């Protein structure tokens, strides 16, 4: 067992034993190979199920506002950014929250592995290598080969706010945000992009896993569920799926912390991040804004500058 896990457990044990928190939200081993699952530890006896590794893919910030009482949370960089936005938006009481920060090298993209080896029967991770036994064959991967797309462009692997840091921090280059993925899509023709999104949207079954996995989708009633006005019909079709996704992305504009939870949650493999990333890029380029990188910031659409760009205007 590595030191980080040990420290997480000890911290949790202490917090619970001393009554500083009612619950610790962290990860435990899941029921499937390469899957961790969120867990809620209510007493110090339970802390030994807590783990930390490259399978801890869920954004635990999703749970924080809905969990009553004082709570501790194991937070990666992206989780902490989501927490920052939630704080900016009055969704959390900082004093009720204890952030156990962990620097994150990224999580594993299981879908990629599954596509190659079939259903995963067994897997183990050690020294940056992942050995997988699958129904269609066995394979060994370097972690970097199967790192989730989100994590490949991550600029905030270290928590932006925390009460305690566990483990080392990760050095981050100070370069401007990179959006090669967005640019690649932008460089395509309108009709190519249209085709791409049509294909993506035809996969969507409107199960709302993306929305529900998102730490920042916390509306009491989502616009897609609203009866009056009825933004969407009850239909599940490509056009309205896109309306849902585009509407959702607009609602995340200047708030999305690019954690990738939506894409990972999607059972249909819809490239939801393609929309969010475009939005993130626009907000970054136009307003020099990154969401949730400090407790004090504001969501981009909550503020404005007299000099905001306005290339979008008609030419007349």
């Amino acid at each position, binding site marked *: 067992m590595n030191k980080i896990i040990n420290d997480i457990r000890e911290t949790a044990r202490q917090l619970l034993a001393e009554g500083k928190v009612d619950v610790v939200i962290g990860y435990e081993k899941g029921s499937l190979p390469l899957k961790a699952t969120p867990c809620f530890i209510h007493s110090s006896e339970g802390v030994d199920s807590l783990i930390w590794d490259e399978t801890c893919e869920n954004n635990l910030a999703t749970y924080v506002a809905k969990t009553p009482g004082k709570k501790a949370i194991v937070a990666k960089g992206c989780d902490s950014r989501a927490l920052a936005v939630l704080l900016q938006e009055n969704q959390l009481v900082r004093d009720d929250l204890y952030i156990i920060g962990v620097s994150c090298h990224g999580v594993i993209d299981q879908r990629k592995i599954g596509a190659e080896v079939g259903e995963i029967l067994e897997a183990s991770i050690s020294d940056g290598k992942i050995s997988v036994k699958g129904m269609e064959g066995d394979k060994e991967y370097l972690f970097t080969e199967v790192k989730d797309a989100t994590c490949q462009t991550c600029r905030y692997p270290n928590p932006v706010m925390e009460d305690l840091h566990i483990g080392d921090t990760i050095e981050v280059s100070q370069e401007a945000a990179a959006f090669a993925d967005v640019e690649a*899509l*932008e460089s395509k023709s*309108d*009709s190519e*992009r*249209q*085709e*791409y*999104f*049509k294909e993506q*949207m035809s996969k969507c079954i409107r199960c709302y896993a993306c929305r529900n996995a998102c730490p920042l989708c916390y509306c009491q009633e989502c*616009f897609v569920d609203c009866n009056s006005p009825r*933004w*969407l*019909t009850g*239909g599940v*079709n*490509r*056009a*309205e799926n*896109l*309306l849902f996704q*585009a*509407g959702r*992305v*607009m609602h995340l*504009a*200047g708030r999305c912390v690019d954690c990738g939870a939506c894409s990972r949650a999607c059972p249909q493999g819809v490239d939801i991040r393609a*929309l969010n990333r*475009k*939005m993130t890029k*626009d*907000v970054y380029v*136009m*307003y020099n804004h990154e969401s949730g990188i400090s407790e004090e910031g504001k969501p*981009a*659409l909550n503020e*404005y*500058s*007299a000099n*905001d*760009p*306005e*290339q*979008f*205007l*008609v*030419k*007349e």
Partner: protein
Amino acid sequence: MGEIQVETENKKYEPKIAAFLCNWCSYAGADLAGVGRIQYPATIRTIRVPCSGRINPLYVLKAMANGADGVLVSGCHPGDCHYISGNYVARRKFALIKSLLNHVGLEEDRISFSWVSAAEGGRFAEVVKGVTERVSALGPNNGIFKVVDGGAADE
């Protein structure tokens, strides 16, 4: 003055454009075009709103889903807002939705944004002409958002 020439295969096609105009500037500019009898195409269907800041980006999506051939949103010039900053608040939303919709493959010219002041009657007419021309060139909305009979229009 004013007759626009639209070169499309189907000459009879006349787009229908949902136009959101802010009460204090653009709606007044549109009135001024009327007072000046400045002719422009009869393509827009105006919805008067107090301020461009009132425009929810979802309106644009809804208009597209409902099959409007175009959407025009017009407000006060930056700094002229009757409510001080409504159009500044709106501006970010507009820039982002325009860029996003273009990214997902909606034709750029379906959605138009402009600032037209209460004194710019002529410019209002120019904007409508320009928007109409560009929307006409695209042909009817068969776009990725349009819903017909419970399905995407082109499914």
